């Protein structure tokens, strides 16, 4: 999962409170690799989380690619799109969580939340758990966000984070179960994707390209998307900004967990 010195694992100790949690594992994962590897990592961590009764927060980034929801598997040109996108340098991976295609790359930060035994949680609470620390991290950089939908944006839904009327982050989740020694254990996997910088790639166009190949009717609009780089007016290089956002996110996640 990671190389020594590249990844920070921190046990946050026992937490009790409104979030009902208990032990948290915060993983600041700097391991490079394709999105499919990171998605598998989530599944491995989910099993471990269920076994140990530990909730997990993991920050990760992947090589350029496209991550789609399961509903896209039904598109008529799915197999053809898979090959064409891979040849174009955008391999496609399928995630467990809902929604449609989301691009990945060096300017995009992902947050995975694994929440074992969710009890009577609602999906709204999980979305808020994903968004709140990210909102705090962005706020500390001078970017005010609010939840909402952006019609015409990539993977739209009620629980995007918006700056003005543009999307800067999106969320999705899956409620799953794992059989362990005969017993079924439920867990929730949440994903948040934060657009930090584009690195001169038109992320919307890449996504439209996929749906063009796959026979989907989707057509997204580039002006519905924004990035941290555009919003915080930072003069620092994009890679430095990504590192800074990760730093702020780790700080915000620690605070959020301690406040739970």
């Amino acid at each position, binding site marked *: 999962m990671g190389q020594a010195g590249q990844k920070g694992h921190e046990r946050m100790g026992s937490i009790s409170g409104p979030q009902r949690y208990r032990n948290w594992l915060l993983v600041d994962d700097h391991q490079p690799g394709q999105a499919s590897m990171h998605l598998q990592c989530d599944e491995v961590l989910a099993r471990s989380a269920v076994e140990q009764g530990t909730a997990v927060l993991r920050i990760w980034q992947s090589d350029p690619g496209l991550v789609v929801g399961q*509903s896209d598997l039904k598109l008529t040109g799915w197999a053809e799109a898979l090959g064409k996108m891979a040849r174009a340098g955008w391999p496609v991976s399928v995630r467990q969580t809902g929604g449609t295609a989301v691009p990945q790359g060096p300017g995009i930060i992902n947050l995975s939340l694994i929440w074992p035994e969710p009890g009577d949680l609602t*999906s709204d609470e999980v979305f808020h758990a994903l968004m709140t620390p990210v909102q705090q991290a962005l706020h500390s950089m001078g970017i005010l966000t609010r939840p909402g939908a952006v*019609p015409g944006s990539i993977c739209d839904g009620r629980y995007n984070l918006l700056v003005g*009327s543009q999307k800067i982050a999106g969320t999705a989740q899956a409620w799953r179960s794992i059989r362990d020694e005969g017993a079924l254990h439920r867990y929730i996997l949440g994903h948040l994707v934060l657009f930090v910088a584009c690195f001169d790639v038109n992320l919307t166009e890449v996504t439209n390209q996929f749906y063009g190949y796959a026979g989907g009717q989707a057509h997204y609009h580039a002006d519905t998307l924004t990035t941290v780089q*555009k919003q915080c*007016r930072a003069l620092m290089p994009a890679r430095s900004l990504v590192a800074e956002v990760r730093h702020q996110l780790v700080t915000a996640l620690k605070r959020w967990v301690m406040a739970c």
Partner: protein
Amino acid sequence: MAFEFKLPDVGEGTTEGEILRWLVNVGDVVALDQPMVEVETDKAVVELPAPKAGVILARFGDEGQTMAVGSTLVLIGQPDEKPPTALAAEVLLPMDDDALSAKPSAHLGGMLLPGIQAAPATRRLARQAGVDLSQIQGSGPRGRIVPDDVRRAIDTPSVREQESLPVRETISAASTDREEVVFKGIRKRIADHMALSWQKIPHVTVVEKMDATRLVAFRHDLKALATARGLANLTYLPILAKMVSVVLKDYPMFNARWDNDRLYQYRSVHVGIAVDTEEGLVVPVLRHVEDRGMFDLATELPLLASRAKERKLAPDELAGSTITITGGGALGGLFATPIINYPEVAIIGMYPMVTEGVKVDGEWQERPTLHISLTFDHRVADGVSASRFLGALKSLLGDPLGLLAYLR
């Protein structure tokens, strides 16, 4: 008696869910908590477990079909039990247009959303294209929205773009004498930005009044040169911007940004210029003012201002300023206390030129008089350094030939 398992509201206010994948078939024996079906509601893929053990007597809805919350998904009973005839007939109605025209929507097992009639494929198309179905008049049977209606809406910008209108929206309440004004787009962003700056920065404003006689003469002479070089106009703004960049060399703490509890001082001077537009103030950026001549700045300024008013500025033209200038020029008022363009640490105000009586050598004379202000972040600087910075700027504006002293 068979147990009716209905699509639950897994969130708060969810009204529908799409069946992604069936995990059980009719006739399967299910254990308590065994996952039966995956449903997607607003990007949450939820595995719904069996609330009781038994045999699947019937399941309702196909993969890809959208079901309303509260509609029956599964009947669980005993091995030899049969599903109730009435329920099975009701929920197994086909979802084609003929069936719709023959049966009221309320009899379709909750497969349709109240008020909006559209097939799942149509809903998906609308969702992907960003079209609000509630804005569309359906052309199908009983007003049902069909894919062609959505495609027409995609070609009609008003339906999709309503969400991103930059201007404020007024909601009239006929029964009262008040109206609610909802801020959207640029106005909302300005509001958020102003509030953030006011919340985070302790603002202090210093104001100076100056005799602008020499400045007026300087601009007059320079304007003649500018006209000779083909420039349409030369306002005071490029002169002020240049002078600010010169004076900032001695006061770098005001050419800075406070990001993430860290202060970054900049060698380059990127001056934000507050431009009034119909949607509110926007702040395009004059870059590297320290390296540029006044004519160069005077050429770019009107272009930036007109592009701002036409909302044609690219995002990077609005980003990265290190200090901002705002002018009260034509609007009247003696002076103001501007709000700092967060996360910068200073904003300079220049106000209308007025004529005042000044006693010179014992005689009253009319002199052009100018007010300038410096609003600064009191975390970064104190009143002494702010007053010195503004005083230096005042001196240079009061005697523009002093610029020669900064030539290298």
